[in-house]
């Protein structure tokens, strides 16, 4: 007999760590996405029923996969069309545990790349990755992305349908397709992380999922630098998160209590970035991680290495051009070379109209004008930013700044 609490904790841990592996293995064997998820679900239910009697197995993942596969075999037996797949399952049946344990890493990677195939619409890639790799249910994913559950369910059904009907292969693409496909995978994982970074209810778990999936990708593709770059970026941002707001008000970087940043995460982030850079193929995520590392390792705001950050933003603007990157570079230049230089860049961006409606443009302008002592213009820019700020924490911060002027 094993204590109910211990079993519950073990099943929860297995769900977190093994769900994606079990589903991936079952999809690999049967090619049936819904069947794979149903049988994975059943195997966790069986664990809750069996482990209190028989004890927690040494390798929960292998146990769950074996149960799920047997369940799939039973289901396919009742289904004529399943005959061919059934043969495949039977062939793989003997000596299962070893076989499964070895297949798993590759299966999970295949699942990530299939979910993030460019033939699927971007929102479906994100939803499908979360559903199949983390076991978040449709309602949880819908809540996290502020979408109706029915919309999210439809998105998932369509995506699975297209994978089968359009013949999207269940595999990691060949080397020459990898750069393009890998960048789509990284974009999905970063979006998942960022959705959780806004401190809104129901979303916080997504940062953990993003980091978890990035770790999986790093382990599975050790010679690719960008997954490490992305993981480093996530760890360095996560290290500062607890201190990002206070009482529902955003705290800007320079006012954050650096002693409350998570030193262990910062150390791991920096080490991960070093491993990525050692592979000597720079990419946008490594550059962003390097910028985050400059902030995270500065002992205080005043000693931040702004010239280095400005140079990194210039590199990022070359590798992955975007007006948001230009805006960040303008801030770094204001801090490194003086407010007027930065303001000139911000004003040029405003004139180009490329960031129309993006609240950080007026918010940044307001901050620079305030630092330059141009209060009246700063107040006007704060008003403009307030009108389009997306979260309460940001609105409260801007309103506070406006009152101080």
């Amino acid at each position, binding site marked *: 007999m094993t204590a109910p609490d211990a079993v519950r904790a073990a099943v929860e841990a297995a769900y977190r760590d093994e769900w994606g592996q079990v589903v991936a293995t079952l999809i690999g064997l049967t090619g049936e996405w819904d069947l794979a998820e149903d049988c994975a679900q059943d195997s966790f239910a069986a664990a809750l029923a069996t482990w209190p009697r028989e004890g927690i197995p040494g390798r929960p993942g292998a146990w769950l996969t074996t149960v799920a596969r047997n369940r799939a075999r039973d289901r396919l037996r009742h289904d004529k069309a399943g005959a061919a797949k059934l043969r495949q399952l039977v062939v793989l049946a003997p000596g299962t545990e070893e076989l499964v344990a070895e297949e798993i890493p590759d299966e999970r990677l295949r699942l990530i790349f299939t979910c993030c195939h460019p033939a699927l619409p971007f929102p479906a890639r994100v939803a499908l990755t979360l559903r199949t790799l983390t076991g978040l249910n449709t309602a949880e994913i819908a809540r996290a992305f502020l979408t109706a559950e029915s919309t999210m369910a439809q998105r998932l059904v369509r995506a699975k349908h297209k994978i089968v*009907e*359009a*013949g*999207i*292969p269940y595999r990691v*693409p060949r080397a020459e397709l990898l750069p393009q496909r890998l960048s789509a995978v990284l974009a999905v994982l970063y979006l998942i992380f960022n959705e959780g970074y806004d401190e809104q209810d129901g979303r916080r778990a997504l940062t953990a999922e993003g980091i978890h999936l990035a770790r999986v990708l790093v382990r599975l593709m050790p010679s690719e630098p960008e997954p490490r770059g992305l993981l480093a970026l996530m760890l360095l941002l996560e290290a500062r998160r607890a201190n990002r707001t206070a009482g529902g008000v955003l705290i800007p970087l320079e006012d954050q209590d650096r002693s409350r940043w998570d030193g262990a995460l910062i150390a791991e982030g920096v080490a991960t970035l070093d491993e990525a850079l050692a592979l000597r193929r720079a990419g946008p995520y490594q550059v962003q991680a390097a910028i985050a590392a400059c902030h995270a390792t500065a002992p205080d705001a005043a000693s931040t290495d702004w010239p280095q950050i400005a140079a990194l933003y210039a590199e990022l603007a070359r590798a992955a051009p975007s007006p948001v990157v230009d805006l960040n570079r303008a801030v770094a230049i204001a801090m490194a070379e003086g407010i007027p230089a930065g303001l000139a860049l911000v004003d040029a961006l405003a004139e180009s109209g490329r960031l129309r409606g993006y609240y950080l443009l007026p918010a940044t302008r307001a901050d620079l004008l305030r630092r330059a002592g141009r209060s009246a213009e700063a107040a006007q820019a704060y008003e403009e930013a307030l009108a389009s700020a997306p979260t309460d924490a940001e609105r409260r911060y801007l309103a506070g700044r406006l009152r101080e002027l």
Partner: protein
Amino acid sequence: MKYVLLICDDETDAPTNEEIAADPAHRAWAADVDRRGRRLGGARLRPVADATTVRVRDGEILVSDGPFAETKDFVGGVDIIDCADLDEALEIAAGHPYARRGCVEVRPVWE
């Protein structure tokens, strides 16, 4: 799996059949697909000026001049290929010279 490639382009400066036949890019693509043994058939279509659309509504046959859709890019040809999966079909589609001037829609065949 079978796929149809819908070869789409703005037809305002379409090359002639002779130009296409002589174009090394077209010849290389056709040779590549044939070498893979993937091509089941295909056809170039005459311009949309020669198209006629038929609809039947309430038992009445409605015949109108032109294609069914009002767009800039029209289907100018089709190729039918048989591939292992979508990735192979996309690779073949990306090699088609019209992917560079118009676009190629890849549609699985209902089998």
